[in-house]
């Protein structure tokens, strides 16, 4: 009797190899057996198959413990187990690219034969590239080693209906198999696998909790669920670097202070941004595809207004940093540096802190009390503020000598003007100045006037709405592009229109005109304008407005307010200095000097200025201490995640059908009457944080535990913030994956 044991992996065709060998002997009139050792196989698991043949009838029904020969289908299975019980003088056939000589040290007592059955199988297109079916090739090699004529194995292939590449593979392997004789006499073999008496196992009652040894369901699985995390789009786009998903999650769980704490990691001004941010997070919100973006802006305001957090700065350090300019960028830098423990002095040319937040945003959008509260948060950290001091180039050099680092955050001080000819001195003013005067209490009234505001940004909207509140008969905004190109926050444009502001798009003012009157020069005033159309895109990517010939017309006008944008005042720096974020300026000095905020980036939003201030503060800390600073973005993994993706998750990767529709909550808005006559804040804010529950938590586990609920095997548990899978019993059904609305649980192939 000849007995052959075959070691392979589930799916490789080991049992079929046994059957091929058995069939070839059966066709020569022998008695045969071919069988597998069946258990909890899954594809890829190590498995065994057996073949025996004899001239006499075979009555033995055992497994094969002392094989005459061994065949190994997969080179990664080579190890002591494959030698168990192998008889002296038996051969071992390995599917490998190695030569038998190179393996003879490993198997000194046996004939070693090798053939690259994988390459042969692939060459004949057997199986797939990743799982080539090697059994027919190995059948050819075995035939050669058994000194059988090739025809006998080909007959077996034919008998079992194997044709084409299988026949060629067997033929190739028969030719290519290489052999090397044993290096020494066979001694007694360790690890004879023949079973003796078994020991008593554990009691059923002792193991009634499911701990009995044996085969667990999980061993059948081909796939296992795991946990991953993506970057939600809101977090990705936030210019301030806020963990938007994180604070919304805290709010949804009624943890208002935690929400504020999360926001304060990246920004000192949640209550401010919650009022004035253009909220790119909302524009990128995946919930738009369902029923509208989550109202992140109002929720940030909610956290900023209602939350209470006591900030504790790090231990006070010796280094001192000067910050020039107390707008959002300078304040953010001062805030973060103070949290790191630096002594910070803030220099402000004006009489009050806040920069554009104070001077450029009217009370009805950002009440001074809100700003003051957030400023106190910065000052409470020990930041020293010096107001009424303008820092020119000389003073900047002095600061550099007296500090370990200097930041310049002077923003955009140069206002763009427009030449409108005669009369402009009396009639034309700058929007920024207009807003600052009104805010600071200069008694300006525009009762009965027709006011024209030129521009399309938030300053234009704020100036127009302020003019309306000061008694204007009419307020028109003229803008040379279209609504689509307007940089103002969409909601603010809507609110301005609600209040009665009119907007003339594709309109360019040309000159102020005074109609000559018979009785003198106090005639009616007009603003001559031209119609525009959009041409080719300019350097900003927006389509350049082009005049329409002969399109002049005039608008009645008593006052023109310009809001055309600003540019940086670089006179403080030496000629030719390259001003950009993170670049050290005035390289001649040992002290690093940095530009931050709009001065460096020209991004033009509070959120971008906050982000810039924070990044440069981190950079300074890193430069001064050599410590590697981990930014907020990298600390957002709250618990164990198997795979962390840097990509942003889009709506198509979410299971949108699993989310319930729920209308957006916007909060109350005061009546138009009050909006026309007072500077009261027009938004009352959200009455509760319920809106936060609309957050889809895209690609980030928010512990909804739907997966735990639906797991039919009960093998998925929530332990703290972790999801714990009991892979011993997880059959890999994937229900947790199909029920996870936010693509956190995914199936991983085994």
């Amino acid at each position, binding site marked *: 009797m000849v007995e052959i044991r075959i070691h392979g992996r589930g799916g490789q065709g080991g049992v079929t190899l*046994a*059957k091929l060998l*058995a*069939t070839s002997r*059966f066709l020569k009139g022998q*008695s*045969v*057996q*071919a*069988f*597998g050792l*069946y258990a909890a196989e899954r594809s890829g698991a190590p498995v065994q198959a057996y073949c025996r043949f004899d001239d006499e009838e*075979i*009555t*033995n*029904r*055992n*497994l094969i*413990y002392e094989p005459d020969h061994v065949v190994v289908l997969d080179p990664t299975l080579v190890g002591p187990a494959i030698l168990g019980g192998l008889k002296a003088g038996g051969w071992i056939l390995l599917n490998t690219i190695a030569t038998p000589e190179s393996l003879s040290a490993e198997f000194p007592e046996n004939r070693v034969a090798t053939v690259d059955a994988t390459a042969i199988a692939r060459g004949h297109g057997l199986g797939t590239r990743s799982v080539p079916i090697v059994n027919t090739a190995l059948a050819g090699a075995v035939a050669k080693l058994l000194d059988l004529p090739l025809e006998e194995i080909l007959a077996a292939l034919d008998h079992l209906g194997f044709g084409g590449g299988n026949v060629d593979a067997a033929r190739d392997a028969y030719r290519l198999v290489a052999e090397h004789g044993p290096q020494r006499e066979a001694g007694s073999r360790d690890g004879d696998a*023949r*079973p*003796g*008496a*078994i*020991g*008593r196992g554990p009691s*059923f009652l002792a193991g009634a909790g499911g701990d*009995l040894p*044996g*085969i667990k369901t999980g061993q059948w699985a081909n796939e296992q669920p795991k946990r991953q995390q993506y970057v939600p789009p809101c977090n990705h786009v936030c210019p301030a670097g806020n963990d938007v998903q994180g604070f919304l999650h805290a709010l949804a769980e009624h943890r208002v202070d935690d929400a504020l704490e999360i926001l304060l990691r990246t920004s000192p001004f949640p209550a401010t941004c919650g009022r004035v941010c253009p909220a790119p997070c909302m524009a990128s919100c995946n919930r738009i595809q369902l029923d509208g973006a989550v109202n992140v802006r109002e929720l940030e305001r909610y956290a900023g207004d209602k939350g209470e957090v006591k900030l504790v700065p790090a231990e006070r350090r010796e280094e001192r940093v000067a910050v020039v300019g107390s707008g959002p960028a300078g304040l953010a830098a001062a805030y973060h540096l103070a949290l790191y423990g630096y002594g910070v002095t803030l220099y402000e040319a004006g009489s009050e802190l806040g920069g554009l937040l104070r001077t450029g945003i009217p009370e009805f959008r950002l009440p001074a009390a809100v700003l003051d509260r957030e400023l106190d948060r910065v000052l409470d950290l020990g930041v020293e503020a010096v107001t009424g001091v303008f820092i020119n180039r000389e003073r900047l050099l002095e600061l550099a000598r007296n500090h370990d680092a200097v930041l310049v955050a002077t923003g955009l001080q140069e206002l763009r003007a427009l030449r409108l000819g005669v009369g402009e001195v009396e009639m034309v003013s700058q929007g920024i100045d207009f807003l600052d005067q009104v805010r600071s209490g200069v008694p300006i009234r525009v009762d009965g006037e027709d006011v024209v505001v030129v521009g399309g940004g938030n300053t234009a909207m704020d100036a127009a709405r302020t003019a309306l509140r000061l008694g204007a008969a009419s307020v028109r905004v003229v803008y040379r592009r279209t609504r689509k190109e307007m940089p103002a926050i969409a909601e603010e444009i809507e609110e301005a229109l609600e209040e009665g502001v009119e907007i003339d798009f594709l309109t360019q003012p040309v000159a102020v005109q005074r109609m000559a009157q018979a009785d003198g020069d106090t005639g009616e005033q007009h603003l001559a304008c031209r119609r525009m159309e959009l041409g080719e895109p300019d350097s900003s990517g927006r389509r350049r407005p082009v005049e329409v010939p002969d399109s002049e017309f005039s608008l009645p006008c008593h006052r023109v307010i310009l809001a055309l944008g600003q540019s940086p005042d670089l006179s403080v720096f030496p000629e030719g200095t390259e001003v950009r974020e993170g670049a050290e300026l005035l390289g001649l000095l040992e002290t690093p000097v940095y530009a931050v905020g709009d001065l460096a980036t020209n991004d033009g939003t509070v959120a971008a200025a906050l982000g810039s201030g924070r990044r440069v503060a981190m950079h300074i800390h890193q430069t001064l201490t050599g410590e590697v600073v981990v930014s907020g973005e990298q600390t957002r993994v709250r618990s164990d995640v198997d795979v962390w993706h840097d990509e942003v998750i889009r709506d198509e990767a979410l299971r949108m059908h699993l989310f319930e529709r729920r209308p957006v909550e916007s909060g109350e808005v005061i009546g138009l009457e009050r909006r026309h006559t007072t500077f009261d804040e027009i938004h009352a804010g959200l009455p509760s944080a319920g809106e936060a529950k609309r957050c889809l938590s895209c690609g980030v586990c928010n512990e909804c535990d739907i997966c735990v609920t639906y797991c039919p095997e009960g093998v998925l548990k929530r332990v703290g913030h972790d999801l714990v899978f009991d892979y011993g019993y997880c059959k890999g059904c994937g229900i947790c994956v199909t029920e996870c609305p936010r693509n956190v649980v995914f199936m991983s192939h085994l």
Partner: protein
Amino acid sequence: MPVEVVTGNHAAGYALAVAGEANRFGRGAACGIYPITPQTEIVERVAAFPFTKGRVVPVESEHSAMGVSIGASLTGARAFTASSSNGLAYMVENIMTAGFYRLPIVMVAVNRTLGPPWNIWADQGDSLMLRDFPWVQLYCANNQEVADLTILAFRLAEDHRILLPTLVCLDAFIISHTQGETDLPEQEAVDRYLPPLDLPHRMRHDDPKTLGGLIWPDVTTSLRMEIHEAMQRVPEVYDECREAFREVFGREPGAALDAYETTDADTVLVASATVATTAREVVKRRRAAGEKIGLVKMRMFRPFPEAALREACASATRIGVLDRDYAAGLGGVWWQDSRAAFQGHRDDVILQDYLVGIGGGDVTPETVDRVLEDLAGRDRAGGPVWADVGNGKGGGA
């Protein structure tokens, strides 16, 4: 005739199908089927067979699978099915019904361990639990016996002197999934061996009646007696079926039991199925070494061939029964019936029970050697010995 290298499941599925097809000249073939490891390949093969006349009905449970087969058989169709382990347990009510209805249904049972805890390997506890029902039970030791006894079972069951359902059993994996050379009889020969089923009490639309209504104790008693008398006729009819088989197919299936080297044996092992063929290797080796040792390989379990067993063991004073099964509170089922066979006939025998290969454990020649060692050293029989477990003395003494 085509000899092929096939699995035991292949042989069983093929045999059921050709036997059913042979009734195409009668009222056709019909059965309900339901899968369970390790017999699923059998019903798959049946389902794939292109029956000329008849129908294979996939149902939602083993209970219904037998239900469909009962209904089909009652109308005169040749009915059959296959199951295993807990599937048989779930089928029990209808298994009993088929027997009391005296329907010649043939079922293949792949012997698999009952659970929980779950175990898919060989153990005869599942079919042996049906021992008190009116079913003939036959046990196979190789693929050829699976094919032959399955076909023979129809002729036996359908014989008017018998009219009892018949169970053909084979070991999980050791036979069901093992490839071996097997002569698969051709349809034409099977047609000759199995004439169309003629069920005397079949349902007819032109003669409506109720089967299985309420009866009195006296009628019940007489129906049980009829069953008993039919059971008593089984050995004789079985031998006739073997003889007829040889005439058609040229080979003869084994008798109710095979006595191997028992003539002068002082020690005899009693075993069934694949455990018996492995034990025969040991007996052969020990005989060659001069020991007076023999083997009785049991093929028929119901009716239990008591007289033949006593006869085969006539010279033996030590008998070891190998049971791959366990009846709770007593021991091996084969041992219980073997012991009863000697009751009142012999009192000079040490008849000892050995539980081997429980839950599919590999029964090796070494296992059998350990059994023989224990048996030789005994001065009296005791409770069942768990022969695979070190010092596995059971309860009782």
